[in-house]
């Protein structure tokens, strides 16, 4: 394998048969290249769809209420169902074991928020500390709302990055006062939300504070829960679906809503939707893998085919070499080493070319549904070695047979 004389002989043979070398290399390189690009884009689609979807926690159960559409137990339809703090606490206690994060919200749309001379209309949401994790929000500076803010009804606000840019420009907003409907709130933090600018054009204040300053009593608008994920995804989906159903029926009982009234109490289970999207992604990936593996198989067959032709074409040469004293094994290993070298070299070339393309084109793709196309380097490398191995195997059989031909027969071959 490391015999320098042998390698010199091989390089000489390869460089003097440029077309043959080039064609073999091309079929291998293009196979690997196509596979890498396919897998890259499959990953890109996965990344894109997931990032679209994972702006908020994926294991989220959202509860909101509306107006009854059906009369029930003597009550008229058209009644607005108002959730209270009690409802939230009851559910929170009852499902304590399954709940990961929880919050109830009281939000005001289009609140007038001002700092010095800058004014704008933004959504202001009263929330609990867990809300940060439910929104997948990250703190850029300062901190999020905490439990003591809640307990003491502090007039503090965590503002989105966009809101900060609008009102504060380059100024550091921490510990500055903003006014919401003329009331002063101290800014304690700035957050970033994966949902983008839309989500960053709002401010969070403690739930209790919002109920107080907006005269809401103990009213709440929404309840959000995330459920603890078990290792088994299907189990988690089933659990969250059960929980969603249970919460819905309990709230209906509490507020005397007809069980089949779909608009008064609504519970949305994100995980159910996640399951569908994940299975869609899995299908896309399976298709890409299928095409990729098909390409690789075509590549292997191509390499094998070329090897067969090479051996056939070189039968006479093999005969000459044997007449000059070549050992049968030296013939086999000569052909194999050539094959392995060419497939390896061009396989890696295709790999690097494919990765380079993804690296180059990846950031230029401006689509919400394809993000960061990339390939697991190990997978790509494994396929290269697989191709090399298969190419060697495909080359071995004809090479071995050729080495077995009697030199006199091989020499007669025209």
């Amino acid at each position: 394998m490391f015999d320098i004389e042998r390698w010199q002989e091989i390089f000489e043979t390869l460089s003097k048969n440029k077309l043959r070398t080039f064609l073999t290399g091309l079929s291998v390189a293009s196979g690997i290249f196509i596979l890498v690009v396919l897998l890259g884009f499959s990953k890109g689609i996965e990344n894109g769809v997931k990032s679209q979807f994972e702006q908020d926690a994926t294991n989220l159960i959202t509860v909101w209420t509306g107006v009854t559409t059906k009369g029930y137990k003597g009550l008229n339809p058209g009644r607005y169902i108002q959730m209270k703090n009690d409802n939230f606490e009851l559910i929170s206690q009852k499902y304590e074991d399954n709940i990961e994060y929880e919050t109830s919200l009281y939000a005001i749309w289009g609140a007038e928020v001002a700092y010095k001379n800058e004014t704008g209309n933004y959504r202001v949401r009263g929330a609990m500390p867990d809300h940060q994790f439910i929104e997948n929000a990250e703190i850029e500076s300062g901190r999020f709302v905490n439990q003591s803010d809640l307990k003491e009804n502090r007039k503090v606000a965590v503002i989105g990055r966009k809101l900060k840019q609008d009102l504060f420009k380059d100024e550091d907003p921490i510990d500055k006062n903003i006014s919401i409907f003329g009331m002063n709130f101290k800014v304690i933090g700035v957050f970033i939300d994966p949902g983008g600018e839309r989500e960053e054009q709002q401010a969070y204040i403690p739930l209790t504070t919002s109920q107080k300053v907006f005269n809401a009593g103990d009213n709440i608008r929404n309840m959000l829960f995330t459920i603890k994920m078990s290792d088994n995804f299907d189990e988690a989906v089933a659990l969250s679906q059960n929980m969603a159903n249970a919460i819905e029926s309990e709230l209906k009982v509490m507020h005397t809503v007809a069980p089949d009234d779909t608009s008064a109490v609504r519970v949305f289970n994100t995980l159910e939707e996640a399951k569908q999207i994940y299975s869609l992604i899995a299908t896309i990936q399976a298709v890409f893998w299928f095409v990729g593996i098909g390409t690789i198989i075509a590549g292997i067959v191509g390499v094998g085919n070329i090897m067969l032709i090479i051996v056939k074409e070189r039968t006479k040469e093999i005969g000459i070499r044997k007449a000059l004293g070549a050992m049968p094994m030296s013939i086999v290993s000569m052909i194999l080493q050539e094959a392995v070298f060419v497939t390896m070299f061009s396989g890696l070339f295709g790999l690097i070319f494919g990765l380079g393309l993804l690296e180059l084109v990846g950031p230029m793709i401006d689509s919400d549904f394809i993000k960061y196309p990339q390939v697991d380097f190990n997978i790509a490398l494994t396929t290269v070695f697989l191709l090399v191995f298969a190419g060697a195997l495909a080359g071995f059989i004809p090479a071995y047979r050729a080495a077995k031909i009697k030199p006199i027969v091989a020499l007669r071959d025209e």
Partner: protein
Amino acid sequence: MIQIKDLHKSYHMGSNSLHVLKGINFDVKQGELVSIMGSSGSGKSTLLNILGMLDEADEGQYILDNVPIKNLNEKIAAKYRNEFLGFIFQSFNLINYKSALDNVSMPLYYKGVKRKERTERAMHYLEKVGLAQWSHHLPSELSGGQKQRVAIARALASDPKVLLADEPTGALDTKTSYEVMELIQGINDEGKTILVVTHEHDIAQMTKRIVNLKDGLIIDDSPVEQIRASEQIRLSEQLKDSQHV
């Protein structure tokens, strides 16, 4: 150098069996230049192939330089071929993508000679056949006579005990044939044992001994008065000149 006793060889084609060699006996001494003659189908090429270990006899004894040649596996046959024999073929059998020099150094590569020495020795033999300035040309860029000279240089490269030539002039015109024979005679003069298979009488007359084969048996084996190829070339040139005048 070569001792052969009662050599038999048959080829089987389907149900037909063709008995090609029916008991060949002959010896070749060191330094001999022997031609094997016979019409096609007489078994002369088969005999040469067996001598060259390219083919195996069914029966009989073959001793080459005191080494009994029998029950060869591929490995040993390859080693013996490399060590004992040099081949010259009718169709030259040069590797077409290798230069003259690389073709000549090929047997040395299989002998395990290092590259530098290989090139030197190959160059030496190319000089010997008068093709030093053609060393980097591909076979396709050489004439038939030149190709055969390269093949002869290649056969000599590993310094074998015996040269085996199968119709070495079969693909060449008369003048070139004589030039090739002149070269072969020169090599023989230096003491190399050479066997030439041919069906051309003038070529056979240029050896020192003619073995005549017919239907798989030796019918005649006698020394001849060697005609020097250089003489023939000179004569034919004189003839040409006289025709012009």
